[in-house]
């Protein structure tokens, strides 16, 4: 067990982890439910031939998903170092 890490550090780390988890969860939800719910209006808008809602469901949301995952990874890898909770280099 991580006995060498004090309770306070762990709590602060986990609070920040929970916060980013919630933020990403909400953005994830909005990124695919938003274009769906607004479908009737967004699909009237056509950019470069793409009806906007159609484009999101087929491509745009997917790109956002990647961005969210990369953001999470970068944020968390930094958070580990900030609290000294990173793994030892192998």
């Amino acid at each position: 067990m991580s006995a060498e890490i004090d309770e306070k550090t762990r709590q602060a780390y986990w609070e920040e982890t929970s916060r980013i988890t919630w933020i990403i969860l909400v953005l994830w939800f909005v990124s695919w439910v938003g274009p769906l719910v607004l479908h009737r209006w967004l699909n009237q808008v056509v950019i470069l031939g793409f009806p906007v809602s159609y484009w999101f469901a087929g491509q745009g949301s997917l790109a956002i998903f990647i961005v969210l995952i990369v953001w999470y990874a970068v944020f968390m890898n930094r958070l580990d170092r900030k609290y000294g909770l990173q793994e030892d280099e192998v």
Partner: protein
Amino acid sequence: MSWGKIFAIYTGAFVLFTILLALAEYAQLIPNRGIAYTYLVVTIGVYALIGILSRTARPDQYYVAGRGVPAFFNGMATGADWMSAASFISMAGALYATGYDGLAYVSGWTGGYVLLAIFLAPFLRKFGAYTIPDFLALRYGGNAARVVGLLMAIGASFTYLIAQITGVGIIMGRFLGLDFNVGAFVGLAGILVCSMLGGMRAVTWTQVAQYIILIIAYITPVAMLSWKHFAVPLPEFTYGQVLREITTIEQQLGVQKLWVDMAPGGMLNWFALCFCMMVGTAGLPHILMRYYTTPSVKQARDSVGWSLFFIFLLYFTAPAYAAFAKWTVLTDVIGRKVTELPQWVSRWGDSILGTPTNSLGLFDIVDKNGDGVLQLTDFVIKSTDFVVLATPEIAGLPFVVTGLVMAGGLAAALSTADGLLLTISNALSHDLYYKIVNPHASIVKRLTTARILLVVAAVAGAYVATFRINIIVAVVAYAFALAGSGFFPALVMGIFWKRANKQGAIAGMVVGFLTALVLIVLGRNWGIYLFGIKEIGAGVIGVPVGFLVIWAVSLMYPPPDRQTQELVESVRYPRGTTLKVAGVE
């Protein structure tokens, strides 16, 4: 030599090989069937070679590839593991048939990776076991949770496996004219040589090799089609033009529901289907298992990003496939005289001019009102698979590209089958045999058992596939609802809520799974839908039910013991050790 260099050379060699075959075809040195067989023999030969070179006698290599797979390559392997025969051959066709409504699959089969990234992958890596039931057993104290987990893992994976073997049989039948059963067993042999000797280690590197082939094969034909029409080989961006044309033609023809629009009142079911596919993705054991194989928690996080990137390359191309095919049918087939149909039509479909001997019968061309001109309803689709399969010929490309598509489809089906087979045999050999039946088994005995069970599971899968049960294809879609409702809540609560206990988790897994199952049976057999949600999206109800039951039942029983709470603590922080599962290195 580094892995990067090896696979760069491999990719170059494969491209060169394809070019040589194209030259041979151009010089008329090789008939079409010869090209197809060359692809078959060479690709399966390469997979087998990787399988044999990766053989191992160490359990950590066999079960989790020695936890030495870099994030980038684990991403590729996950991509191949994830993208099945259905993604490769059928998804674009489903989009062709349904337009906007089918996009629920595209969003759904990618969005699940966000859930995987923030809720599961890094924590499972820190936990560092061999199987998903391992986690359930240690977190929820004992073999009851393990048994529930292993039954669900086997149930979901086995139906999925049969669908892959069916896919292999169909592909070989279409391209090589092999009998379905022969094709299925040839495919089976291909799967076994990849996985039997080297377990996860062999499957991982084979999947990387398979990913490279499948992505080249998927993108090439439609890129060339885009090149032909727009002089830009990026169909993902040019198909906006195509969508515009489709809408214009549809309006001229007086089509009520435009292809790019949702079916009226379809929003709730679109949501349910998409949600269900996402949570199911994050609950399928053969995908979760892949994140045990990275060297660190950090790399597990990075690896989810790479996974989705490699999956994205195919999925964001699929809508372009569908659009180009739709456009071609609307412009080249509809409105034409029956006697002036383009050539590809005769190879892939039956027409009123008669069925050519080499036709594959994926669609019918009829002339309902007998005016000699084709109307929209005269093009009767029997299998939308024609979208991916016929695109090379629609684009006027040589047969070698069709052979390439065959090799890609085969790679997609085989790689997924490898991962599934390993999940099934590991659940049987590690969770059932070693953890429950014979905890004192030696390493040699454990690995021998694992290999025997792998062969047994593979043969059983191929045997069941030969019955060609139609329901299987539908069952695969249901596997997402079942895996999502059964696994996902218990795994997430196990990490994010210390108070979750054994009683709650077991009740939640069983009730969540059964809720989805009952909704599927009711919907499928009697057309009874709760809130009007079709059975394929049953997970949208099953998942919240699973979470609620775990919460409520956990509160009725005492909190888990100190040791378990410390285990939960330890998986949350990358530094430090975790409790060890006996027999797991």
